[in-house]
């Protein structure tokens, strides 16, 4: 075994007599103290005796034919154990991908984006590996770069991928389009005739990075049976496994995977990064190989949020009722498909937002370009659409002379409303109520810098940079609301697996929960223990480290883990409970008639009747026996969207959040301080209220980031990334993070475990348009691009 940190787990939480720490309580994270004190072991902290360090050589150009690769000098470097290129791949499987296997493990004949992996090196020191990689000579013959819709669809456009054979190629109008999803309902032409006002808009959404703080890293250890054990920070162990094993030429049971400490993910770890490279080098050298990206490489090592161009037309009658919505959403998928098809599905199906509109004409496409590959990120296609449709709702309100919140409430969907896909919303959809709540919150006091205490520059735009003491500062207020699907959609078999074991240890009953769920910070390790305590009445619950020795848990994404793996844990607990009660009946059934007649519960380590009578201690029921169940659990099935009309029951559940942003803008310098970002969200049931609020505040902050600062800047002439560092890719600091009051609504979705609703993404949607709306309110500028930059507010521009 490597010197593997325990990843904060297994963790045992000892509870009191009445099975405290069940669902609905704000139990604390088992890894929380470790993380805030710097003691938590992340994947980059792993170490193994005799291990080598891997390093990846990446392309310096965005689009080129590879004329030659000379690894001679690199191989001759002292301390280098292996250098591998495409020619060294061991099997016929040389590509991987989440849905479309279009991504080469190592470039073959061509590179399609800046920073694409070309060769890998293993050496006895990370610096040696880096130096040796720099000695690999790659000769490129540059090709023209495809960077936008115009260049992608030009008649003479170079194809980013020739010979496509994926299942989308049949319905896309051009091979440089990954996927296209139209959604058409009603009669837009007729509805347009009824409109008293029509507003149009064109919007631009910049490329956001997940910016997780723990860069990509992992350790591959060769095993005696010819297999490999990979310790890895990922979002979905089994999805990685499915992609890794064929490239290595190993059966899946010879590729063992254990989750290492994950330092954030936000979608950026859904695709593979260094997994296959580390395994290849470990198998080639027979030694453990560790790869850790630095921040610079991390910007090239994972997909980003799709930048987008969005064209919208909204019509309404004079009383504010929407007549129709037309929109066209062009997402830039970059060089490889990644999650683009599913992002298109979300952007289109959620493209009009949480509003009731009968007549819609929506089209979303994702392009293949030579820009950095884009894929999953928190909010997943719904974010870009929300930014645009909420800007449109403000425009429409202004045109109608209506209050923007009222306009939204007039058109708010509710339970029973049909989505543009024709799918009825069959659980609570309190859109108008969320807006009412967020509007009703008290406003932060105005012009505090004029109070007797004087100006605290930290409360003003520019902060400690001391740019204003109140001069030029104007307040603005903006509202937005959004809709996000929960779980995997469009007919995907979205299941999870849980193994739950109950036994007696140290004289008391203990429960072990084993899943392959990736804990990426969302709090699954907290919630699973809470579910087990509630279902099994046992205080001591251990969360087993996540690995592939248990069935798939599905991805930690799409706001789905509490719903789906939480559902699987509850389901397995129920099966364990039945078995325990059977055991009890066998052993003690003759002592008390209630064993046969009453509804029995497990509570406080005992078997009790629903009337509260204690029948037996679990310690006695179990004796030396352990009860263990592993079972899969599924949510309701979904259907694909029709490729021509987009109709279909494609989604499992929706989640809704509304924001009110209060900003202060230094209108002369174009600097923004978000003073307050209030959120109201329906969470169905807050299994852990503290974690839920944390998710909402984190998601809101990530949305704020892409409103005012976060953008990967790609040079349109070269398709090269201009700011791959935290010096120039800025994320909010605590001084940029406002007060965030949160109002939780808990309206149960009866289809979901405990009535819960996925929480993590919805707040990321509406926070961006709320902040933009507030800045528009302060400046009077149209601001059709996010993120805004100071010069947009002062010297003109979008």
């Amino acid at each position, binding site marked *: 075994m490597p010197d593997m940190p325990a990843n904060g787990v297994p963790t045992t939480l000892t509870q009191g007599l009445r099975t405290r720490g069940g669902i609905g309580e704000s139990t604390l994270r088992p890894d929380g103290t470790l993380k805030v004190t710097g003691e938590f072991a992340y994947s980059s902290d792993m170490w193994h005796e005799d291990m080598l360090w891997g390093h990846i050589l990446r392309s310096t150009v965005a689009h080129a034919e590879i004329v030659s690769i000379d690894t001679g000098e690199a191989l001759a470097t002292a301390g280098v154990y292996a250098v591998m290129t495409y020619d060294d791949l061991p099997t016929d499987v040389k590509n991987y991908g989440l849905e479309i296997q279009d991504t080469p493990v190592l470039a073959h004949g061509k590179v399609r984006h800046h920073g694409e992996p070309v060769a890998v090196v293993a050496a006895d020191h990370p610096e040696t590996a*880096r130096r040796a990689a720099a000695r690999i000579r790659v000769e490129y013959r540059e090709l023209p770069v495809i960077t936008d819709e115009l260049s992608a669809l030009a008649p003479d456009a170079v194809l980013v991928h020739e010979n496509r054979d994926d299942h989308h190629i049949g319905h896309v109008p051009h091979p440089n389009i990954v996927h296209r999803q139209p959604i058409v309902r009603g009669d837009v032409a007729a509805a347009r005739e009824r409109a008293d006002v029509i507003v149009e808009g064109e919007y631009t959404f910049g490329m956001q990075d997940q910016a997780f703080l723990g860069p990509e890293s992992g350790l591959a250890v060769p095993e005696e049976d010819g297999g490999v054990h990979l310790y890895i920070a990922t979002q979905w162990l089994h999805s990685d496994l499915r992609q890794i094993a064929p490239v290595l030429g190993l059966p899946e049971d010879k590729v063992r995977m254990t989750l290492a400490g994950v330092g954030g993910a936000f979608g950026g770890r859904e695709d593979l990064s260094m997994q296959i490279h580390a395994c290849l080098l470990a198998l080639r050298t027979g030694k453990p190989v560790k790869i850790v990206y*630095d921040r*610079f490489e991390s910007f090239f090592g994972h997909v980003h949020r799709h930048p987008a161009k969005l064209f919208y037309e909204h019509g309404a009658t004079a009383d504010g009722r929407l007549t129709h919505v037309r929109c066209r959403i062009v997402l830039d998928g970059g060089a490889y498909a990644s999650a683009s098809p599913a992002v298109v599905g979300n952007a289109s199906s959620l493209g009009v937002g949480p509003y009731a509109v009968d007549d819609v004409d929506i089209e979303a496409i994702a392009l293949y370009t030579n820009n950095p590959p884009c894929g999953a990120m928190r909010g997943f296609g719904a974010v870009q659409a929300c930014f645009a449709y909420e800007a449109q709702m403000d425009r429409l309100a202004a045109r109608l002379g209506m209050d923007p919140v009222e306009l939204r409430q007039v058109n708010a969907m509710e339970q029973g409303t049909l989505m543009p896909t024709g799918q009825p919303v069959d659980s609570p959809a309190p859109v108008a109520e969320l807006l009412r709540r967020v509007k009703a919150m008290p406003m932060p006091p105005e012009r505090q810098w004029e109070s007797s205490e004087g100006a605290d520059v*930290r409360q003003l*735009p*520019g*902060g*400690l*940079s*001391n*740019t*204003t*003491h109140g*001069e*030029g500062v104007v307040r603005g207020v903006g509202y937005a609301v959004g809709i996000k699907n929960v779980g995997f959609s469009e007919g995907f078999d979205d299941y999870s697996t849980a193994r739950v074991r109950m036994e007696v240890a140290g004289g008391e009953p203990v429960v072990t929960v084993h899943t392959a769920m990736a804990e990426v910070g969302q709090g699954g390790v907290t919630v699973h223990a809470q579910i087990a305590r509630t279902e099994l009445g046992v205080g001591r619950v251990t969360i087993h480290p996540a690995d592939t020795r248990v069935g798939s848990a599905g991805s930690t994404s799409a706001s789905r883990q509490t719903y789906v793996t939480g559902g699987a844990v509850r389901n397995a607990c129920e099966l364990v409970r039945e078995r325990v009660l059977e055991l009890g009946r066998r052993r003690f059934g003759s002592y008390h008639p209630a064993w046969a007649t009453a509804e029995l519960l497990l509570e406080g380590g005992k078997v009790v009747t629903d009337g509260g009578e204690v029948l037996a201690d679990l310690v006695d029921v179990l004796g030396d026996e352990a009860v263990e169940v592993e079972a899969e659990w599924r949510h309701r099935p979904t259907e694909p969207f029709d490729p021509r009309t987009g109709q279909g029951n494609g989604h499992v559940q929706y989640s809704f959040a509304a924001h009110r942003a209060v900003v202060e803008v230094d209108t*002369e*310098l*174009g*600097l923004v*301080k978000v003073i307050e970002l209030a959120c109201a969200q329906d969470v169905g049931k807050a299994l852990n209220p503290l974690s839920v609020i944390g998710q909402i505040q984190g998601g809101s902050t990530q949305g704020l980031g892409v409103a*005012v*600062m976060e953008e990967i*800047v790609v040079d349109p002439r070269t398709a090269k990334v*201009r*700011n791959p560092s935290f*010096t*120039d890719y*800025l994320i*909010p*600091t*605590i*001084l*940029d993070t406002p007060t965030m009051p949160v109002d939780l609504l808990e309206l149960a979705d009866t289809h979901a475990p405990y009535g819960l609703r996925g929480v993590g993404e919805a707040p990321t949607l509406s926070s961006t348009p709320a902040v933009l709306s507030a800045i528009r309110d302060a400046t009077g500028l149209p601001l059709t691009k996010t993120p805004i*930059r*100071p*010069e947009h507010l*002062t*010297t003109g521009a979008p």
Partner: protein
Amino acid sequence: MDFLRPANWEEALAAKAEHPAAVPIAGGTDVMVEINFDHRRPGHLMDLNRIAELGEWEVGEDSVRLGASVPYARIMERLRAELPGLALASHTVASPQIRNRGGVGGNLGTASPAGDAHPALLAAGAEVEAESVRGTRRIPIDAFYTGVKRNALAPDELIRAVHIKKAAGPQQFSKVGTRNAMVIAVCAFGLALHPDTRTVRTGIGSAAPTPVRALAAEEFLTAALEEGGFWDNGKIITPSLAKRFADLCAGACNPIDDVRGTAEYRRHAVGVMARRTLTWTWESYRDARRPTEGAA
């Protein structure tokens, strides 16, 4: 790479004479970033951390002799009265952790136009104490910045200290970044009023290949204040005078478009900061002149 660890200043000078390409390192907040990114591979790194005197300062009659390695955090906490402009600039440097390590010597050694200390040093008036085995000299701050990331040091010289004029009047520092903390300057502006000599001085960061003073603006304002008797009568500075000063400061910029901002925006922002800092400093000056009534 060889790592030199001189035990005292004389050893450091000798080592620098022997290895003129050696890169001195104190807080490491600049040098280590360059090394980590592999942008720089010096043959020798010279650690100055054993030389305690570099972390000390002396407050003299007219000036402060600031050791090259005095961390920004100390300047903020201990020299706010004597060096108010530099103290404000220090507070905008990166994060608390970096401010505990980095010092003005590093800013000068790197001589990046974006270094936060430069506008404050230019505005206050300063001299860099450079020393080699050949001897000591004092380089006026105006002559120190010679090009993008280039300075007037000879290859065998080290920065021992900076002599900064003690504030005789109000000073201000403003910096525009696209985040409210921990941000590199898009552009920055320093202003110091010198009532003792009835002059004003300025410093502009990140808006030209080197940190620069807005000399025409200084001359204009110095003359206008003198002619109008402002220093004596304490009149309010008129908007038109402030605007002319701001325009001249903007005109002193020679900025570029880059990933952090446009040239046009930088010019504009320097003008706004010039106007505001002039108002703040002049209001302070007027407040200080006002007889304190009923003060305890």
